[in-house]
C-alpha cells in the first residue's frame, strides 16, 4: 500500500483526536527545547571562543613560575617577540582608607602592554591605559561594590596608597565567578616595591606575556626553541591553542553535562508519549479491527499510527526547537558568571536540526512500544469486542534494546567517555526499574491487602490504582523521577551549606591571619588580645620542596616509569609546620610521634598524612629528603596520621618535630574568633594598617562568597531541572486528561445510578491523592538514597535526612497531583451524564 494513502488515512484519523495527539507531544517539547537551547549556546560559545581565542590569553605566549623567570629565557624571548609584558601577582590585604574596609585580594602588578589582545574592560572605559601612570589602580567592580567605594577613591596596598582610576568589569579569559574569593586589584609594576609586600616565603606568581608577529608559529617555537631552555617543572607555559583547547574542553564538559540533564527531561517526556500512545491505541483497537476486516493489513494499521506519531513528533520537536532557540538568548545571561568570553546568542541551525531529529527519533522509538501491538489486532475484534491478543510480541524486546542503545549512544556522545556514559545509562535504567518496581509493588500490595471494610469511596479510589487503564505505573515513574531530581538537588545543596555553616559555628576560629613574619607575631597577638579576642592558634609555616625519596632524587623518580608517584606530589611546594604535640584533629595510624629533636646529630622523624604517604609510596622508617629553601634536610618517616581536614584549623601533610626548622625562613599563621562584622572590620583594619603584608581570611566573608557561588551554581542546575519538573507536570496533565476518556464511562455510569457529585469528586480526589503521595514518596526515597550516596562518597559530608524539605516536597507534589486530577474531573461532574457521553465519546 502506498505511503500516500497511509498518510491520508493518518490525517483523516487524526482529525477527531488532534488535541490528544498534541497533548502527547507537549511532553517532548520542553526536553527538546532544553537540548536545543544548550546545544545552540554551546555552538555559540565555541564560535566565540574560537573567534576570541587570542583574547582569552591576552598574548601569544604566557610563561608562569613561582620564582622569577630566568633572565636568559626572558632576554631570548624579548628578542624574538614583538612585544613583551610581565606580571607579579600574590594574595594580599587591601584597605579602603575612606571607610576602613579591608579584604584579601589578588594583587596583580603589571608592566608593559598586557593584554596585547582584547582589553581589561573597565568603567570608565579605557582604564587599562591609566594603569601605566603611577599610583593608579584598577579594582574589581564587585570589591568596590562590597566596600561602597568608587573610581576616584583610594585603596591602600601594603605601604602604598593608590588612586582607583577605574573599576574592572571583566578580565580577558577569566570567568566572573573565579574572582569571587580573591578579587583582582591591578597596580603598576613600578609601584610594587613601594608596597613592601614582596616578602620571602610569600606565595608569588611571576608571569611573562609575549606577542609575536603573525608569521611566527608559536607552538613550534615553544617546542623547538623555548622548551629546551626551561626547567620543565618550574616554569609553566600556555599558548593560544592550548588555552583554546582547555577552555573548549571545559565548556564542552559543561554543555555535555547540561545536555544530559536536558536529556533526562526528554526521556521523561518520552515516557509520557509511550504511556499516552498506549491509551490512545487502546481507543483505536476497533478502528484497526474494522480496517483489517475490510482487507487492511497489520502493517497498514501500524503505518497509519506511526505516521501520526512521527508527524506529532516532528511538530513537538519543531515547537521545542523554536522554544529552545528563544531560551538560548537568555543563557548567556544565566551563565555570565561562569564564562570566560562574552557569548553572543545566535540561531544555531545545527542545534535545531539535531533537536528535531532527536525529537522525532525518540518519539517514534518510545511510541513503537505500544504501536507494535496494532499489528496483532485481530479482525475478529469487530465481532467480539472482548477478543484480545494474548500473544507476546518479541519485537518489543528489540525496541527495548534500541532504546537502551540510543540512551547510551547519546550519553557517550555528550560525555565522550564510555565508562561515564555506561554509568549514566545504568543510573537511568536503575531509576526507571526501581520506580517501575515500586509502582508494581504498590499495585500488588493494594490488591493483596485490599481493605474490604473501608467505605465505598475509599475502596473505589484505591481500586483505581490497579484496575485496567490505571495510571499508577506511568505517574509513579514520571512524577517520581521528577521529584527525585529536584529533591536530590535541594537536599545536597542544603547539606553542603549546612556543613560549611557548621564549620564556622560554635567555638571554632573564623579569622585566619597569615604571611606573618617572625617579629610580627608578638605585636599581632597583642593587638588581638587587646581587643578581647582569643589567639586560638599560633602556627609557624615553612615552605619546602621534595628533593628525594629513599635515596632516589626527584629527577630520577620522574624518569622511572615503574614508579607511579603522581607528578604533583613530586613538584609541589610543601607547607610544613613544627610542634611537639599532635593536634586534636590528628590521630596516629602507624609508628610513633617524637615531638622534639634534642641534638643536631639525631635523626629527624617526621609525621606524614597517611594519604600523602600512600602517594609518595613510603612507610614508617623510609627516608625523605626535603629542600628547605636551598638547604637539604634528610628525614625519616616516624609516623603516619589520619587528619580531620573538615575542621576549621591549620592542618599539615608533613609535620616536623621541634628543634629542626626554627631558624628556617618562615611565616606564621594566627587564628582567632570574632563575633560580629563590625568587630571583624575594625580588627582587620588595625592589623592591616600596622602590618600591611599580613593577609587575613575572614571566614564569614568566605561563607558569604561560597553561599553566593553555590546559589549561582544551583540556580543553573535548578534552571535545567525545571525542564524536567515542568515535563513531569505536563506528562501528569497529559496522563490525567488521556485517562479522562477511559474514566468518563464509569463516572457517567456512577452518576446515572445515583452517585452525587461530591462522591465522584471524592473518589477522584482520593485516587489522585494516593497516586501523588506514592509518586512523591517514591521520588523522595530515591532522592534520599542518592543524596546519601553523594554525601558519603562524593562530597564526604555527614548525611542528615532533611526532614523538613522532604515533607514540603511531599506536600507540594501531592497537592499538585490532586489539583490537576480534580481540575480534569470537573468537566465530567458539572455536566449532565448524557451531554458528557455525547460530547466526549
Amino acid at each position, binding site marked *: 500500500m502506498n505511503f500516500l494513502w497511509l498518510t491520508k488515512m493518518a490525517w483523516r484519523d487524526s482529525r477527531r483526536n488532534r488535541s490528544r495527539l498534541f497533548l502527547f507531544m507537549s511532553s517532548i517539547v520542553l526536553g527538546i527545547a532544553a537540548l536545543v537551547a544548550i546545544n545552540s549556546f554551546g555552538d555559540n560559545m565555541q564560535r566565540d571562543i574560537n573567534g576570541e581565542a587570542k583574547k582569552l590569553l591576552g598574548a601569544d605566549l604566557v610563561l608562569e613560575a613561582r620564582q622569577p623567570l630566568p633572565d636568559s629565557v626572558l632576554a631570548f624571548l624579548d628578542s624574538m617577540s614583538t612585544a613583551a609584558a610581565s606580571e607579579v601577582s600574590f594574595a594580599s590585604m587591601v584597605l579602603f582608607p575612606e571607610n576602613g574596609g579591608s579584604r584579601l585580594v589578588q594583587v596583580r602588578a603589571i608592566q608593559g602592554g598586557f593584554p596585547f589582545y582584547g582589553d581589561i574592560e573597565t568603567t570608565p572605559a579605557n582604564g587599562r591605559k591609566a594603569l601605566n601612570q603611577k599610583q593608579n589602580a584598577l579594582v574589581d567592580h564587585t570589591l568596590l561594590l562590597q566596600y561602597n567605594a568608587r573610581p576616584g577613591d583610594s585603596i591602600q596596598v601594603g605601604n602604598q596608597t593608590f588612586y582607583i582610576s577605574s573599576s574592572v568589569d571583566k578580565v580577558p579569559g577569566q570567568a566572573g565567578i573565579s574572582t569571587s574569593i580573591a578579587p583582582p586589584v591591578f597596580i603598576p609594576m613600578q609601584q610594587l616595591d613601594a608596597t613592601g609586600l614582596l616578602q620571602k616565603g610569600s606565595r608569588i606568581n611571576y608571569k611573562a606575556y609575549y606577542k609575536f608577529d603573525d608569521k611566527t608559529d608559536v607552538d613550534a617555537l615553544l617546542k623547538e626553541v623555548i622548551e629546551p631552555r626551561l626547567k620543565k617543572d618550574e616554569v609553566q607555559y600556555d599558548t593560544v591553542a592550548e588555552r583554546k583547547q582547555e577552555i573548549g574542553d571545559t565548556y564542552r564538559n559543561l554543555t555535555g553535562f547540561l545536555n544530559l540533564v536536558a536529556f533526562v527531561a526528554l526521556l521523561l517526556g518520552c515516557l509520557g508519549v509511550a504511556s499516552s500512545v498506549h491509551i490512545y491505541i487502546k481507543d483505536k483497537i476497533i478502528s484497526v479491527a474494522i480496517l483489517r476486516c475490510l482487507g487492511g*493489513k497489520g502493517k497498514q494499521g501500524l503505518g497509519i499510527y506511526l505516521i501520526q506519531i512521527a508527524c506529532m513528533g516532528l511538530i513537538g520537536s519543531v515547537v521545542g526547537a523554536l522554544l529552545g532557540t528563544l531560551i538560548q538568548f537568555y543563557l548567556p545571561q544565566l551563565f555570565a558568571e561562569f564564562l570566560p568570553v562574552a557569548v553572543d546568542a545566535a540561531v544555531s541551525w545545527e542545534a535545531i536540526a539535531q533537536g528535531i531529529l532527536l525529537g522525532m527519533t525518540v518519539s517514534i522509538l518510545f511510541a513503537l512500544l505500544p504501536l507494535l501491538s496494532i499489528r496483532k489486532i485481530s*479482525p475478529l475484534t469487530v465481532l467480539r469486542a472482548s477478543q484480545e491478543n494474548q500473544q507476546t510480541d518479541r519485537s518489543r524486546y528489540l525496541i527495548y534494546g534500541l532504546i537502551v542503545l540510543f540512551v547510551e549512544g547519546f550519553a557517550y556522545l555528550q560525555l565522550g567517555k564510555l565508562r561515564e556514559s555506561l554509568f549514566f545509562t545504568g543510573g537511568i535504567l536503575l531509576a526507571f526499574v526501581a520506580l517501575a518496581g515500586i509502582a508494581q509493588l504498590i499495585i500488588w500490595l493494594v490488591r493483596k491487602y485490599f481493605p474490604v471494610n473501608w467505605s465505598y469511596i475509599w475502596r473505589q479510589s484505591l481500586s483505581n490504582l490497579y484496575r485496567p487503564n490505571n495510571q499508577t505505573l506511568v505517574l509513579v515513574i514520571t512524577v517520581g523521577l521528577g521529584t527525585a531530581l529536584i529533591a536530590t538537588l535541594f537536599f545536597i545543596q542544603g547539606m553542603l551549606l549546612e556543613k560549611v555553616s557548621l564549620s564556622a559555628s560554635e567555638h571554632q576560629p573564623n579569622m585566619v591571619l597569615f604571611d606573618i613574619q617572625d617579629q610580627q607575631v608578638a605585636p599581632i597577638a597583642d593587638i588581638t588580645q587587646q581587643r578581647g579576642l582569643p589567639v586560638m592558634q599560633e602556627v609557624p609555616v615553612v615552605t619546602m620542596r621534595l628533593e628525594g625519596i629513599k635515596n632516589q632524587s626527584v629527577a630520577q623518580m620522574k624518569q622511572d616509569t615503574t614508579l607511579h608517584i603522581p607528578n604533583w606530589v613530586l613538584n609541589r611546594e610543601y607547607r610544613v609546620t613544627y610542634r611537639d604535640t599532635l593536634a586534636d584533629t590528628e590521630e596516629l595510624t602507624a609508628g610513633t610521634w617524637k615531638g622534639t629533636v634534642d641534638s643536631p646529630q639525631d635523626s629527624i622523624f617526621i609525621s606524614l598524612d597517611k594519604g600523602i604517604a600512600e602517594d609518595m609510596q613510603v612507610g614508617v622508617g623510609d627516608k625523605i629528603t626535603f629542600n628547605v629553601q636551598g638547604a637539604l634536610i634528610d628525614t625519616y618517616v616516624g609516623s603516619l596520621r589520619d587528619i580531620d581536614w573538615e575542621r576549621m584549623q591549620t592542618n599539615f601533610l608533613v609535620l616536623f618535630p621541634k628543634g629542626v626548622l626554627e631558624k628556617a625562613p618562615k611565616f606564621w599563621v594566627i587564628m582567632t574568633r570574632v563575633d560580629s562584622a563590625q568587630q571583624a572590620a575594625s580588627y582587620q583594619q588595625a592589623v592591616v594598617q600596622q602590618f600591611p603584608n599580613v593577609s587575613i581570611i575572614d571566614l564569614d566573608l568566605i561563607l558569604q562568597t561560597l553561599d553566593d557561588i553555590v546559589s549561582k551554581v544551583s540556580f543553573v542546575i535548578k534552571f535545567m531541572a525545571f525542564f524536567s519538573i515542568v515535563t513531569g507536570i505536563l506528562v501528569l496533565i497529559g496522563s490525567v486528561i488521556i485517562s479522562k476518556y477511559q474514566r468518563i464511562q464509569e463516572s457517567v455510569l456512577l452518576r446515572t445510578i445515583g452517585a452525587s457529585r461530591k462522591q465522584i469528586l471524592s473518589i477522584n480526589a482520593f485516587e489522585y491523592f494516593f497516586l501523588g503521595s506514592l509518586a512523591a514518596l517514591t521520588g523522595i526515597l530515591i532522592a534520599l538514597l542518592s543524596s546519601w550516596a553523594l554525601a558519603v562518597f562524593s562530597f564526604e559530608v555527614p548525611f542528615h535526612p532533611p526532614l523538613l524539605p522532604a515533607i514540603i516536597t511531599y506536600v507540594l507534589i501531592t497537592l499538585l497531583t490532586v489539583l490537576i486530577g480534580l481540575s480534569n474531573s470537573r468537566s465530567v461532574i458539572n455536566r449532565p451524564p448524557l451531554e458528557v457521553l455525547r460530547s466526549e465519546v
Partner: protein
Amino acid sequence: MKDDAVAGPILAVKDLTKTYRSGDKPLHVLDCVNFALQKGDSCAIVGPSGSGKTTLLGLCAGLDRATTGSVILHGHPLDHLTEDQRAAVRSQYVGFVFQNFNLMPALTALENVMIPLELRGEKHVGARALDLLDKVGLADRRHHYPTQLSGGEQQRVSIARAFSNRPAILFADEPTGNLDEETGTYVEKLIFDLNREAGTTMILVTHDMELAQKTQRIIQIKGGRIAYDSLIQESVDVKE
C-alpha cells in the same frame, strides 16, 4: 487475486470445527459443520445465543482460523493463508454489515465508504462512494461523522461500504438488531435490493426468523452443529 469466473461454489465449508480452551477444558463451539453456497445464493444462519452463529460467520469470512476443517472462499482455501493473505481475500470478495455498524469513528460517511476501494488501490473512488451513499439516501450527509448520524443512518453507510468493493459475498451479522422496527424494515429492503441488483451471495446471521425467511436458504445452528438446513430439508421433501 481477482478471478470472478470461479468454478464451483462461492463458499464451501467442510467439516469445520472450532474449539476454544476454557480453563483446562476444551469448548467445542462449532462441530463438523458442512455447507456450500453458490453465486447469488442468500442464506440465513439462525440459532439461539451462544450456538456458534457468529463464530461460523467469522470463520467463513476469514476473520479467524478454524481448529480443523476448511473454508474455501471464492476458490481460496482460507486455512492455508496467512492473516495478510486472508485480508487480501476479504478486500477482493467480501463485504460486511455488522449489528453495531462498525464505522470508523474518525472518518466521515463518505470516507468510510471509500475505504474498501482505497484498500484495493482503486482510483477516483470518491464518485463511486458518493453514488453508493446516494443509493442509500445519504449523499447529503456524506461529510458527517458517525457520531453525527442516527443508528439507521450509520447502518445505511455501513451497507454502502459493504457494497462499495462489489463483493462476491456479503456477510451480515444481525444487520437490523440495533434498529427500531421501521428503520430495520428499511435497512432490510436496502440490503436485499442491493444484493439482488449486484448478484451478490449473502450470508445473514440473525435471530429474526421473519428476516431469515426472506433468504433462499436457512441453516439453523444448535450446540455448534447444523440442526436444520432448509436446502437439505427441501431435497428430502422432494425425494419423499
